């Protein structure tokens, strides 16, 4: 679990079964373990109305365990980008009574939440559980480029190359933390780069 810091920094919970007609799970890598954990508390027949969308980690683990839950629909996606068109359509066509469960890395939770927000779902109604990497999605406030999987502090913007302080300030709309030039006042000051978001 990520440490709580400032108010805009997302706080994640533990997935729990919600009342609803349909249940959509979006998870990556170790996020599968959150679903499997939750399933132990789920009422009988819960997954008959469920869709699980899973992006496996590099180790390819947990696919079999999720399939064993026998969801009505099960979809494997190689990346979030590849999942996006399907997820958008599912959410656009969704009716009242759909419950959303997001689990895994912060980048996955944030990006799936971003799509759901655009579809008009209130963020407080979504179940989230953070599992796995603490790597951050970061928006460079200067060039607006998003750098994925940031693990260091400071971090280099993959687009404009500025050295950025990765702040805890987070935008749900952008699904990103804010990166601000760390040595803007004196470019000769180069603080050491430490790997802190693992």
């Amino acid at each position, binding site marked *: 679990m990520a440490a709580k810091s*400032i108010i*805009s920094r997302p706080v994640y919970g533990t997935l729990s079964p919600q009342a609803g007609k349909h249940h959509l799970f979006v998870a990556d890598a170790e996020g599968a373990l959150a679903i499997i954990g939750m399933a132990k508390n789920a009422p009988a027949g819960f997954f008959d109305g469920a869709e699980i969308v899973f992006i496996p980690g590099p180790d390819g683990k947990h696919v079999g365990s999720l399939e064993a839950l026998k969801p009505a629909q099960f979809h494997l996606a190689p990346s979030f980008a590849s999942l996006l068109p399907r997820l958008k359509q599912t959410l656009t066509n969704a009716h009242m009574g759909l419950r959303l469960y997001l689990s895994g890395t912060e980048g996955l939770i944030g990006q799936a939440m971003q799509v759901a927000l655009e579809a008009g779902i209130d963020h407080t109604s979504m179940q989230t559980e953070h599992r796995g990497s603490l790597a951050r999605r970061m928006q460079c406030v200067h060039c607006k480029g998003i750098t994925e999987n940031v693990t260091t502090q400071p971090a280099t913007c993959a687009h404009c190359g500025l050295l950025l302080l990765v702040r805890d300030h987070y*935008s749900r709309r*952008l699904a990103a933390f804010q990166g601000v030039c760390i040595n803007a006042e004196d470019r000769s000051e180069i603080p050491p780069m430490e790997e802190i978001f693992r």
Partner: protein
Amino acid sequence: MGITFRKETFRDDFTFRNSPEHIRRFPFPFHEDSYMYAVNIEPHVVGPKGSVLENLIDVDEHYVAEMQDRALVLAEDPLRCQSLPHMTLAGWDLLELLMEQQALGYPEHFTLTRDGDRWRWINRPLGIDDTFTFGDTSTLPYGPMEYITRQSQGDFCILDQRDGNLWMDAGMVTTQADWSLDFDIGMNFFEWHAPVPLAHEKGIFIRALKFLTNIQQGKPARRLNWTMTINPRLDTSPENYHKWGPDRTTVTPENVGDKVHLRVELQSFWRLPRSNGIVFPIRCYLIKMDELVTQPKWARRLHRVIRDLPEELATYKGLTRYRPTLVEWLLKLDDGSPTSPGFGPDSVF
């Protein structure tokens, strides 16, 4: 007799200055010799003639130059003006408010004529004479918020009120003290204030939100906030921090008076009638140290405030690098004598 608008710049050669009258009307933000956060909100009512509160929407000698600077910022970065789709009605509310207030306070410069939904707006300083249909966006060259805030000094945030909170869902932000509308748009009151140190723990934002969500139509409120800026630069955005940040390393004992500026925000809060939103104008006033210290009371008080400012606040306001140089310069103007209560200079209106 109207305002004589100055020809001046807020970038490159930095020719911005305040006239002697504008120095005396500067909204000095310290009513005592020290500073700490407080919910310093009061009713936004008309103040003394000649002060920045003479009209509830203040237009001053910097108006034309500020609007030119805003146009330059927007040409470079259109993301400084954004409005989420549900905020158009609030944009019309704001257009009405600013046209009414500017025409009321400065009839020699602005005229609003209404015939049902057909409105004619004359802005003489900017050479604008437009007739449009209120509520019909296709009759204006920009959306209503962008149209009117390209003609109004200060930044503007429009807040949507729902779920007992205020949401930053639209804004025109080109003269900001280091916060990004593009990043913060869509956030609630607590989220966009998240990076502010100390104030959350003091419960400031909980009380402020309670106050703001209860603002009534026709009863606006206001508060002052402040920071410091090196060179009279309106656009101290995080977007351009890598461009203006190096200014902070250029302060020397010889140039403090010219380079270091007190930057005061007159923030006001107005309920909007149709959308039930709140508009939050953030009007920025700049004054260089040489101008400010022409009022001896302000010089003495500013010395004491900056000298004693808690370290977290100094860091948050970005003063760390030049604070010692500034305090040393101000010390020479502080003979230790007491300062009178209140904000005003020694020579009051």
